């Protein structure tokens, strides 16, 4: 059942009507009059290390996300891909390495000025959206209130401005009319779309997606991927941890393959899905990984 559903969803992605089947790099270049090398670097992780107890989860990972990039991070479970993503907005604190956001060095725990560090981290987070596997909508607030919380209390918008903005982004993810619903009364796919709208409402420089479709019933995966595909087409900078290989191949401008806490391979999906991939990535793609097509 699970495998069938998964394959169906993946098929849907590759064969369904899809207006945005484009080379991400090229489009990004088209929109940005400068050369690719000139595009602003949003997040730059350098040689990150992270230990959980005696287990080294990240073993020197470097990653650069430039404006307009759509980076798909893949790898089997335990490869450290979610940890890497969570380090990028300091939900996990790296043990070593450095992290720069739009050129600004971000301090980790133990920095001399704890208060200043916290302020800096809050500022970083407000400019990088995050979409979680479990949606993490606040279930004591309506959909609209979920979207208004950040704009009101971080960006300082008035209640009315925040509501207007919330309604606009709710329309963007196709959920107009659900303003006053509570999250528990929505389907998983709808909840995840609300979560994406909540991230968008902060007008972030980049959005991190942590396995956004893994908690969804197979028949609901498509609606979330469709929204993400649209965001990609509009040039949103995205870093996506995912198991949806067909989606990664079609939409990502760069594929990063993690293995054992290290970057085992990276490059354009065209190249990696073609013959140019190293053996272990080919093993992963040919079914060794979970939910690979």
């Amino acid at each position: 059942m699970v495998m069938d559903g998964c394959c169906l969803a993946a098929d849907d992605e590759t064969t369904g009507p899809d207006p945005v089947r484009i080379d991400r790099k090229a489009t990004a270049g088209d929109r940005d009059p400068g050369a690719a090398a000139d595009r602003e670097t949003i997040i730059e992780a350098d040689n990150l290390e992270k230990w959980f107890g005696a287990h080294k989860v990240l073993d020197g990972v470097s990653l650069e996300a430039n404006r307009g990039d759509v980076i798909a991070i893949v790898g089997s479970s335990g490869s450290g891909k979610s940890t890497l993503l969570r380090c990028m907005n300091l939900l996990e604190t790296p043990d070593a390495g450095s992290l720069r956001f739009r050129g600004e060095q971000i301090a980790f725990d133990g920095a001399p000025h704890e208060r200043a560090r916290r302020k800096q981290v809050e500022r970083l987070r407000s400019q990088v959206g995050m979409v979680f596997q479990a949606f993490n909508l606040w279930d004591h607030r309506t959909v609209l209130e979920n979207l208004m919380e950040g704009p009101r209390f971080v960006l300082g918008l008035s209640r009315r401005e925040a509501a207007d903005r919330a309604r606009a982004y709710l329309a963007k993810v196709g959920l107009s009319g659900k303003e006053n619903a509570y999250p528990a009364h929505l389907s998983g796919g709808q909840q995840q779309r609300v979560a994406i709208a909540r991230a968008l409402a902060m007008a972030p420089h980049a959005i991190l997606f942590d396995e956004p479709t893994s908690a969804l019933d197979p028949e609901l995966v498509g609606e979330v991927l469709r929204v993400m595909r649209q965001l990609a087409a509009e040039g949103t900078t995205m870093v996506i941890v995912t198991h949806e290989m067909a989606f990664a191949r079609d939409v990502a401008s760069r594929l990063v393959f993690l293995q054992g806490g290290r970057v085992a391979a990276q490059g354009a999906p065209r190249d990696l899905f073609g013959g140019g991939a190293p053996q272990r990535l080919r093993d992963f793609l040919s079914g060794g990984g979970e939910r690979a097509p």
Partner: protein
Amino acid sequence: MTLTLLSFGPGGWGSTLLIGALMTIAVAVTSFAFGLVPGALAAMASRSPHAWLRALALVYTTLVRGIPELLVIYLFFFGTSSMIMAIVRLSFGYGGYIEVNAFAIGVLSVGLISGAYSAEVIRGAIASVPKGQVEAAMALGLKRWVIVSRILFPQALRVALPGLNNVWQTTLKDTSLISVTGLAEIMRSANMAAGVTHEPFTFYLVAALIYLLFTWGSARLFARAEIFSGRGLKEARP
């Protein structure tokens, strides 16, 4: 004859009992509210990364919950008055007996008892809020106090309400023990009336009915609060 005893006219104990009932409510509400302070502090301490804070919370709750409520009140009553007398003697050389305020001692002791039980309820309620709810707020860049007051607290309250209702009912009943300090709450009023009239059973029965009225009324209030705080839950679907 019973009706005469309970009347508000001359020879009737109605007004004494009424004032006692109001005093009970005043002490109970104040004690419960005051108890939420050490309760919340102990709950936070028990989740602290510092071992000594966790130990402190454990000592507070274990001690208070292991000693009879009446004894806690005695200890506070005699402990505080001895302490104040000692301070006064040392400062002013006055060595006489000083009566401490019974209301203050009552609220202090019953509140600290109440807090020891609130602590457990609050700790459990905070622990029950899924980590992702707070992470989602952190990821937006919300400040810590916004997260606590707008995300963590409302969600924990929902879980805490039934437990807090229990603590409140216990606190309400514990106020009856303050009667030993001479504070004229309903229990003490019934005591006095019983002693004067030699009709103890009648007056204790009236006092019991007044307590039942209070517990019944407050249970209804809590039930309403639970319904309100449960809005948005799946089961609450309209």
